[in-house]
């Protein structure tokens, strides 16, 4: 940093008024075929990034992100599974020496030792040599750890039928009912039935839903006039033509909901 007497500043700030050169340093003096990061190398990195992004987006497009049904805490039959990168820890807890009375081995001692050793690797493997054959113990431990993690993950994942699992836990889509307010029977429904059966035939506290009913047009018309179950007769007030339109409307909505 430039300092000393005779420095000029921008206004009363501490920013130097003297221009510094904006040409990047010449790295060709360094040993080997060194390259400037900006802009030469960055362009290549950019290309690697672009290729990676294309691959990643292909993965995203090819596989819908999974979503199971909404959480139901009362579902006692559900077999829980963590995300794949926790499977090895989960599988470890199934071994006798890592569960039951020995559960602390599985949840604290073994993962603690493994991840603790990973964290402190530079101090455990503190010799000067960097080449693999100069550090057989460190590399051996790492390869052993890797094999165990891969083995545990495989053991855990191989016994799960992932497709059947996804199929069994698919979310149930909410019924999408289209109410055609232009239908001639809609006005009749609005006047006679909507107060109890709801704006989308979904039912209410006083009356059941009209979706998914198995009645014919004649039976619907009959129920509208004479009532059924807790529904008294005489609620429908209108002409026979309107009654026909009403029955047709209810059947049309039911067909659209299927």
């Amino acid at each position, binding site marked *: 940093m430039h300092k000393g007497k005779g420095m000029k500043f921008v206004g009363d700030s501490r*920013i130097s008024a003297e221009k510094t050169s904006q040409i*990047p340093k010449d790295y060709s003096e360094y040993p*080997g075929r*060194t390259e400037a990061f900006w802009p030469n190398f960055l362009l290549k990195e950019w290309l690697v990034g672009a290729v990676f992004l294309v691959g990643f*987006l292909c993965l995203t497009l090819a596989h819908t992100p999974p979503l199971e049904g909404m959480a139901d805490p009362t579902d006692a039959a559900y077999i829980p599974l*963590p995300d794949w990168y*926790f499977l090895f820890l989960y599988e470890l807890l199934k071994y006798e020496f890592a569960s039951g009375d020995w*559960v602390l081995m599985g949840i604290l001692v073994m993962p603690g030792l493994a991840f603790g050793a990973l964290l402190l690797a530079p*101090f455990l493997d503190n010799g000067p040599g960097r080449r693999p054959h100069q550090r057989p113990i460190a590399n051996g431990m790492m390869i052993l750890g890797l094999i165990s993690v891969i083995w545990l993950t495989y053991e855990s994942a191989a016994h799960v039928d992932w497709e059947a699992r996804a199929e069994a836990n698919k979310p149930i889509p909410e019924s999408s009912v289209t109410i055609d307010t232009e239908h001639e029977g809609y006005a009749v429904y609005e006047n006679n039935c909507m107060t109890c059966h709801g704006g989308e035939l979904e039912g209410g506290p006083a009356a059941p839903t009209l979706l998914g009913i198995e009645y014919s047009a004649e039976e619907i018309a009959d129920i509208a006039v004479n009532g059924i179950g807790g529904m008294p007769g005489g609620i429908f007030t209108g002409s026979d033509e309107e009654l026909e339109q009403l029955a047709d409307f209810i059947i049309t909505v039911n067909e659209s909901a299927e």
Partner: protein
Amino acid sequence: MLQKLYDWIDERIDITPIWRDIADHEVPEHVNPAHHFSAFVYCFGGLTFFVVVIQILSGMFLTMYYVPDIENAWKSVYYLQTEVAHGQIVRGMHHWGASVVIVMLLLHTLRVFFQGAYKKPRELNWIVGVLIFFVMLGLGFTGYLLPWDNKAYFATQVGLEIAEQVPFIGEQLKTLLAGDANIVGAQTLTRFFAIHVFFLPAALFGLLAAHFILIRRQGISGPL
């Protein structure tokens, strides 16, 4: 015109040294895949950061629709996935990115480990890197609950039961995470949301800054 704009800004905030620190440095031959193809192993770290950026951006867009509440969390995710234009892609990027980032982190860690690149004077940066790994696993664990579907709920319940078995502090630890000693519910979801969206990303940004500053200070490790 651009030069004038640059000078105007430079005169006020002295930007040249800042971008010099970020961008103006040499790339040695042994890490340049243009000279040695096997040097592609040096890309893993940068690609990990790239996926982290994807995670941050897609996550920001997800919070535009996501509602951290047990009534609406699942519904908002379902709506995002089925109704919102490109919602499935944005959620897909965040979902698959969470796995890809772990894979890339693992590859980067193995590259550094087997090259012995963590040896003096780079011990501190290795520790920062392993802490980043732990933060990532924490992000994976807390993010798994947020869609509030069955697998999220029951996996979290198992995770909390494991936390409970830790001696002495187990129950406090579970209560701290779940918001209640017994119930995995509304409080758990808001807590995991806060941890996933505010606490852990804050820790991640700090650690990433330390990671990158250390790399620039020390330079990349030499060839074997």
